[in-house]
């Protein structure tokens, strides 16, 4: 097994075009949504349930949840990829453990605790929830960036150097390009994690489907919890699917 096959282990070798297998997830998500809609339709909802399960509320919560997820992921990309590159350089050997420890801490601290701590410093709302989400999702992207860059076959770098490329050129044109599949795999993991953790945003006025889940649990209204949970899962599947598409489109040709 060569270094490249390890780095791209998660990516299937099939060609770039959209195949039938790419339709399975959206179809399954649509089927789940339709089943959920039909099931809720058969229930007789009391006033508490009606206040949570109506179009306005669900649309608002969906927008809040997706916003939280996307903004957090964008921030994670901006933070984790450069840090991952820095941590992967041999000459930065001394600071690599510091970066990794910080990223590990972010994931090890219970997210709800981190969120509540943040409210003391920054008050409540969208930004506070973002801090928690970003801290939680940095690690997988950082790790995968490191692994992706480090696993590039040294002979390829040697060859690039022989062609007269500078260090920066080697990084951009060879190492990063070959690391793309691994980075994207990390990003997919981060996205799915973020969708789940975003439910905790409900505790700090950031909205999202967590509100439905928590409310249903507290008031023993099962349909409210189920709708919140299924919709969260659907978003997770949908973003994972988008991640898969991105992997397919962005991975360097010939790999």
């Amino acid at each position, binding site marked *: 097994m060569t270094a490249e096959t390890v780095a791209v282990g998660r990516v299937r070798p099939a060609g770039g075009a959209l195949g039938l297998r790419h339709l399975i997830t959206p179809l399954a998500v649509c089927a789940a949504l339709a089943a959920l809609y039909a099931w809720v339709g058969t229930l007789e909802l*009391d*006033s*508490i349930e009606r*206040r*949570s399960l109506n179009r306005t509320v669900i649309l608002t919560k969906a927008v809040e949840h997706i916003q939280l997820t996307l903004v957090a992921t964008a921030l994670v990309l901006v933070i984790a990829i450069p840090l991952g590159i820095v941590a992967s350089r041999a000459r930065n050997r001394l600071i690599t453990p510091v970066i990794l420890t910080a990223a590990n801490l972010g994931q090890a601290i219970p997210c709800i605790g981190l969120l*509540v701590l943040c*409210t*003391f410093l920054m*008050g*409540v*709302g969208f930004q506070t929830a973002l801090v928690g989400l970003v801290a939680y999702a940095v690690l997988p992207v950082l790790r995968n960036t490191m692994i992706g860059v480090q696993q590039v076959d040294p002979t390829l770098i040697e060859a690039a150097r022989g062609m007269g490329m500078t260090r920066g050129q080697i990084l951009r044109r060879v190492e990063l390009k070959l690391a793309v599949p691994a980075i994207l795999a990390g990003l997919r993991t981060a996205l799915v994690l973020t969708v789940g953790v975003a439910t905790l945003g*409900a*505790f*700090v*006025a950031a*909205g999202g489907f967590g*509100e439905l889940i*928590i*409310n249903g*649990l*507290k*008031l*023993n209204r099962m349909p409210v919890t189920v709708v919140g949970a299924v919709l969260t899962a659907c978003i997770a599947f949908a973003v994972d699917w988008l991640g898969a598409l991105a992997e397919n489109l962005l991975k360097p040709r010939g790999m």
Partner: protein
Amino acid sequence: MGARTLRHTLALLAAATLTVTTVSGCGSADAVEASSAGNELAGAKFVIGSKDFTENIMLGQITVQLLKAHGAEVVDKTNLGGTAPNRKALESGSIDMYWDYSGTGWIEHLKNATPIQDSAEQFKATAAADLEKNKIQWIGPTPLNNTYALAIRSEKAKELGVKTISDVVELSKSKPEEVTLCIETEFSTRDDGLPGLSKAYGMTIPKDRISLLDTGVVYTETDKGQTCNFGEVFTTDGRIAALDLTVLQDDKHFFPSYNAAVTLRQETYQKHPALEKVLQPVIDKLDDATMQKLNARVDVDGEEPGKVSADWLDKSGFLGSGS
């Protein structure tokens, strides 16, 4: 940290000394079991649960120690989780009793959407329906009514001149930007929460002035006053006094009653009729002021719920040594 540990140790030592003094007369190793409270429950065995917030844990602890003092063998499963896990554990027989509230029983277990305004009626209806439908017996109610209220930090209350919820309604017309509200998720959808309150008082607060938060965060944010001026609180919470919050008077008597009671399966109740005789005097003494003080000792001073409830039972003479 060191000072605190030391204080804690000293407190424990003091408690131990007291225990030994109380016990020595009876000649037993266990203060609680050896008290002269009576042994009506000798031979009985109870598993006692509780919900996961301070007041309910306190009530659970009070029951644990009280029943022990009356000769029962008790398994302490307090702090078991939220309402739903406790209720399920009770129905399945994993626990024998836990404290619940009349409003909770009516709305959550019996699935009524509209509460009953009169507290005695609310309790009677809940206890009767739960016994008939689910064979769950309610022993109570306590005078304490852990209901919802709106609170505001005291200096701001003076500045804005608000004392009642009707004053808030006036304020929402004259200075709408001052009416910002911190509430829990469930308060936003309950009939006895914000939707009902808004209807009863004819008040509309725009969505962007309402923040949905976790319970604990509601208190701290209401105290800080940056996110919101008004917060949804529970009337028996110790943090109200500790954070110097002013509770607004519910001048239209909108909020329903949440009187506490011990809930248990009918068969347990019938098997041990002495339970009611043992519990009722304690239930009668638990009013809002008492509960606020007990809750504050745990939430504000950081004492152990078990110790606080033992202290209170002892001082009130329920462990048999008070007379």
